[in-house]
């Protein structure tokens, strides 16, 4: 969008970025388990637990067949109705969720199986238990370990990409976003209340934060914007599957040293100077 067009938007008090935020949070939109079933059918076998503390239901993980190739899938799941949402803690993972994800990634590395991460979270859970069990440490460990994971990793943001809690599943070879998804360092409400002491200025904050798929693409933080699929649009899921498969094929062909070198370079250039 040109600057002139942006100015015009401001005059009309329309906030397209915040509309995207609302769309990304829409409780009727598809969640991670929907994408898994639509893309992988009944080939998905769910695997539970972090082997350390518990099984965090905000994170769903397992193995499925992508055509003839087994892949590890890890998604943050918000739940599709009230009961599920409570069970899934509204898609806000505890440290054990991130540790489960890392366990499954390490397992995938062992068998040289590509990893697909589906991100949909307002953020890592901010609570007493989460802090006591090292939320910061769990996220930090994922960032470190994913950077050198010796197998292809692809992340798709399918709704909200909430800060460190999303990044903990997004240190990948490529990151894609659905057209109605957002990815940000902080929620627009949080940003507006901290900076302007007024959470009702969230729409302005959403614009300033540059958090839409288009913004992130323009900032060269993501590789692709994916058209938002409707639930009944099976052809769209098939083409998404094909796209995922081609990306994995390309990265599986690389020597693992080359693969992790490229992953490092992908993040290394963000904010690099000179």
């Amino acid at each position, binding site marked *: 969008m040109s600057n002139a067009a942006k100015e015009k938007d401001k005059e009309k008090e329309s906030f397209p970025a915040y509309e995207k935020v609302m769309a990304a949070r829409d409780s009727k939109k598809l969640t991670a388990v929907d994408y898994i079933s639509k893309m992988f059918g009944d080939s998905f076998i769910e695997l539970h637990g972090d082997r350390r503390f518990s099984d965090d239901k905000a994170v769903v993980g397992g193995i499925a067949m992508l055509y003839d190739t087994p892949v590890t899938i890890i998604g943050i799941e918000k739940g599709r109705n009230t009961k599920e949402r409570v069970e899934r803690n509204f898609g806000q993972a505890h440290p054990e969720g991130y540790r489960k994800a890392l366990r499954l990634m390490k397992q995938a590395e062992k068998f040289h199986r590509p990893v697909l991460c589906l991100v949909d979270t307002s953020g*890592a859970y*901010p*609570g*007493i238990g*989460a*802090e*006591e*069990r*090292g*939320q*910061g*440490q769990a*996220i*930090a*460990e994922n*960032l*470190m*370990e994913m*950077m*050198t994971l010796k197998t292809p990793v692809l992340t798709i943001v399918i709704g909200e990409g909430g*800060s*460190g809690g999303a*990044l*903990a599943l*997004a*240190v990948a070879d490529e990151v894609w976003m659905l057209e109605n998804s957002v*990815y*940000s*360092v*902080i929620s627009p409400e949080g*940003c507006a209340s*901290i*900076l302007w002491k007024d959470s009702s200025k969230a729409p*302005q904050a959403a614009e*300033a*934060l*540059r*958090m839409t798929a288009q*913004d*992130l693409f323009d*900032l060269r*933080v993501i590789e692709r914007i994916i058209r938002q699929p409707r639930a009944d649009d099976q052809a769209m899921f098939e083409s998404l599957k094909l796209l995922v498969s081609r990306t994995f094929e390309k990265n599986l062909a690389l020597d693992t040293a080359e693969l992790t070198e490229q*992953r*490092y370079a992908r*993040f*290394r250039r*963000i*904010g*690099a*100077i000179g």
Partner: protein
Amino acid sequence: MDFFAFVKPKNELEASSNKPENVPFVPEEMWVKCPKCNAMLLTTDMEENLHVCTHCGHHFRLSVRQRIELLADRDSFREHDAELTAKNILDFPGYDAKLEKAKRNANESVCCGECRIGGIKTVLCVMNAEFMMGSMGTVTGEKITRAFEYATDAGLPVVVCTVSGGARMQEGILSLMQMAKTSGAVKRHSDAGLLYITILTDPTTGGVTASFAMEGDIILAEPDTLVAFAGPRVIEQTMRQKLPRDFQTSEFVLQKGFIDAVVSRDKLKSTVARLLKMHGYAEVE
């Protein structure tokens, strides 16, 4: 007892009534009030005591310069990338003014360089609470990444002193990405078999906690340091309840198993120097 002993408050009750104007001969600017026990402390005493309250042991926040003086051998620190400075890359409203103010103090929220600690060549990064509360912007991430890359190439250990309110929201997603970038650089340094010691100082929170602060081979913290991912105010809002008093202090995270030791400021340099030595790094000269 030293010469100034007569003005040192003996207990909290005395401290609260002991206002500087009641004490003759000592100008006001020579006093500082301890935020923990309210004792009035002489700045000269404070400097001698490494900015630790002589009354209750509270560790005052150190400036970058003071932190470097505390850890590095005298005159051994050589700064790297000093000219790198934050920019308003997203054209975020109000950020220019904030940066202008912050830049009166420093160019960015971290100072990185090379020094000797107990005679051992070490890369040292010190975060700066006076620069936008040590928030991590893209240049912060870039400087820390460069410091780790330099250390990896040169085969040097790294010591990072953290103090941070978290990621810098005015730099949006680019700030968040610095968590991944710095973590990658730490991982490469680690894979090269080199030692990384983290020193957590008050407060260490948010995106810094969830990246390089928690990635040290050895994680030390000063006493009574806030160590958190989500800060206490955020949690109180979610939980709608008051948090226990010691929650998220360095003593608390030590007990929970997330740091190696709480080390008081007077023992910090010697502890780091001993650890460096134990990892086979030799003294130069």
